[in-house]
């Protein structure tokens, strides 16, 4: 396991390095500078401003400086906020994003599994039909539409929760629901399909024949085996939540990095775009790593260094 982990972390760093390199050079190909008022600036003024941002050096030097900085946690200075280090910008904004992401993952995945399992157990009953309809709705309604509907009905009409802004727990409720809808629906759908298969398999028949209780069979044998494919989709679900958060944070005025990412793209704030891309990549890779580890725990057949074991 340790050997596997080391190998995976090595690949993770390699991927990160490639992401940094590709993003860096892509950004260099795009137009845009920190100059707000280019036409009115003399060439010497322009040079001076660019020099302050380290943009007058040859590109390969900028690249080396950037890579060196990234590994020390220095992502450069933001173009849109004067004299603000990008690392500060991100560290002060990552909290709300993480909180929302984790909450959405939890309230999406766990109820998703339960609802999916329930659908499979009560197959072809009204319970199954209802859960299927709910999950199809969850998949087909985009998060930003759901967000606006929640704002209007729950926020504006019922006034149960704040429409937007960031404060205590109550402020996280609507955005979390909007973000969690799609992971919830995906998990429910996958769990149901898998569980229906598993419940029809021979070893479940055998377990029942051996006289195990119905719920015992479901919990110990059916659910555990159904979860393997569900774990596989955790990675894509995390991506879903991350990309969803960019829109959701804008709609709910949440001071997170998704909202900042959109802003930095609109204002050509390249240091921030790169830093957020890197942060997103790291988060995604960590999620994938965790998924793989959990995978091994759930299913002994897929222990990675299986041969030596």
């Amino acid at each position, binding site marked *: 396991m340790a050997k596997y982990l080391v190998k995976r972390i090595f690949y993770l760093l390699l991927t990160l390095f490639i992401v940094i390199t590709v993003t860096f050079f892509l950004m260099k190909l795009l137009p845009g500078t920190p100059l707000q008022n280019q036409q009115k600036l003399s060439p010497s003024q322009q040079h*001076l401003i660019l020099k302050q941002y380290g943009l007058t050096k040859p590109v390969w030097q900028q690249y080396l400086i950037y890579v060196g900085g990234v590994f020390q946690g220095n992502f450069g200075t933001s173009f849109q906020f004067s*004299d*603000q280090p990008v690392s500060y910008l991100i560290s002060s904004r990552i909290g709300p994003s993480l909180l929302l992401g984790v909450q959405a993952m939890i309230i999406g995945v766990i109820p998703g599994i339960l609802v999916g399992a329930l659908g499979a157990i009560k197959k072809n009953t009204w319970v199954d039909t209802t859960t299927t309809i709910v999950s199809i709705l969850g998949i087909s309604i985009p998060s930003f539409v759901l967000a606006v509907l929640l704002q209007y009905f729950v926020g504006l009409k019922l006034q149960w929760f704040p429409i*937007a802004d960031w404060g205590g727990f109550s402020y996280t409720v609507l955005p979390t629901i909007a973000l969690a809808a799609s992971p919830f629906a995906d998990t429910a759908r996958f769990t149901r399909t898998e569980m229906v298969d598993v419940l029809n398999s021979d070893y479940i028949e055998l377990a029942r024949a051996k006289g195990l209780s119905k719920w015992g069979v479901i919990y110990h044998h059916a659910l555990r085996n159904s979860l393997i494919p569900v774990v596989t989709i955790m990675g894509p679900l995390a991506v879903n939540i991350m990309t969803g958060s960019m829109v959701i944070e804008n709609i709910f005025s949440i001071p997170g990095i998704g909202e900042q990412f959109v802003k930095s793209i609109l204002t050509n704030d390249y240091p921030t775009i790169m830093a957020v891309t890197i942060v997103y990549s790291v988060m995604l890779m960590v999620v994938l790593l965790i998924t793989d580890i959990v995978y091994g725990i759930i299913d002994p057949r897929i222990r990675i260094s299986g041969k030596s074991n």
Partner: protein
Amino acid sequence: MAMQFSKTLTLAAISGASLLLFSACGSKSKRQLADDQTLHWVETADLPTMDPSKSTDVVSGGALNNVDEGLLRIGQGSKLRPGIAKAYHVSKDGKTWTFNLRHSKWSNGAPVTATDFVYGWRRTVKPSTAAQFAYLYNHVKNYDAVNKGKKAPSQLGVEAHGKYQLVVTLSRPQSYFKYLVASQAFLPQNQQVVNKYGARYATRSGNAVYNGPFKLTGWDGTNDTWTLKKNDQYWDAKATKLKAVKYRVIKDQGTWLSQYQTGKVDELMTDGTQYRHLKTSPDIHIRGSASMFYLEFNQRNGFFKNNLDARKAISLAIDKQSLTHNILADGSQAPKGLVPQNLAKKNGVDFADAAYVKSGTTYQLTEARALWRKALQQSGKSSVSLDLLADDTPNGKKTVEFIQSQLGKLPGLKLITATVPFNVRLSRSTQGDFDMVVGGWIADFPDAISFSSLFTSNNAYNRGRWQNKAYDTDVKNAEGKDANNPDERWNDLVNAEKTLMQQQGIVPLYQRTQAQLLKPYVHGVQYFPTGAQWDFSRAYISNHQ
């Protein structure tokens, strides 16, 4: 010229008195002050800096205008009122401006002196600050040399005579210098505070001092809420009724509307769709900005060069009334010329009316088609393919689609349109990579020159390279030999504008106007069409339940 200010002063005093009278009367009937004097305001972008030398955007401009005070302040109707300067005097040749300062304090208790102005101005102009709006100082003596680093900042034409007199020397007269000293780039700065925080100066609310009606709190440099609190050290603090202005950033227009409807915020800048539904609301206030969007022709070479008929045909074929009323429908106005309406007035006459050339903005399709045929003949072609470039903003897209449908009625014209991000549009138009481009401009200060200077032959913003000697001479005279003669200067600029429209150097499309919803209990908020948009120093909240 010295008299001019005392006149302004009296006027300000009169309007101040009548305001007092009015609110006094009002307070007896229904305008009773609410207990909670907190205004909830919204920005759609974050606050990027509070450094007066580095502010380039409307968010920081608006905040600075409320937390700091320059020599003068702009008041209602773009009229100047005294700020830190009690009075000023302009020499006969228009080159020496003497400002007498009042005794006032920074928020940390230190006195605001002439030295603070000298220091702040030098800091903005000196090259190492790399201030992007330093060019506003271009009439101040030695600006060029200091800004290029050829002379020491101490050579800039501004000096303190004692603690409370500031003397500014201009290299050439500039009648609108009085408006410039009311803008952010000319604010005083406290040297001790700047030195104390160094590179961290004004990057969060605690790292700066304020000398205006409010002081900034709760801003950590990148967060999206901040508060302006009443500044008790301000010299006119007794006139400030608001305790606080709480800002929050809302980027989604729908969210903003919901927050307004539930009373979480006190104002809403509507977009086109919302305006159509809310037009009749009693809360609506029309906020016309001193901005103009216009079509530029590439006249470096190609089809439009020396082809007046072609330019006129394009202009006549576009119905600007229809564009503003039916297409944009956000409150925007059809233009009368390049210079927006309500930007500059003389003896009660609006510049846009004085310089109005009907043929420059009117819609006449029959004439347009005839002229277009002539234009094609002149160029010896039977058809022509032209590209049209614009921003990929909602308004940019609507404008382009509209122009495309209108120009489709001209025979033998194939239009290829492209809507691109702002920066791409800028770089392509600067390089001349277009046939027609939709551009825009917002005045820095309330004087026609802010627009007129754009289309002189050598101006970097003249992206189509339209060239006209008479125009250049008029603008040059307004900035040069007639700079100190208001009547002649006005005539110069009016003539320049007429030339531009007669020669159809550009096609004005629309004057951007926004409609704001403001809660009925909010009073006295001042809006300016130029520069920093808002002033809360006289605002108050009336009793409401």
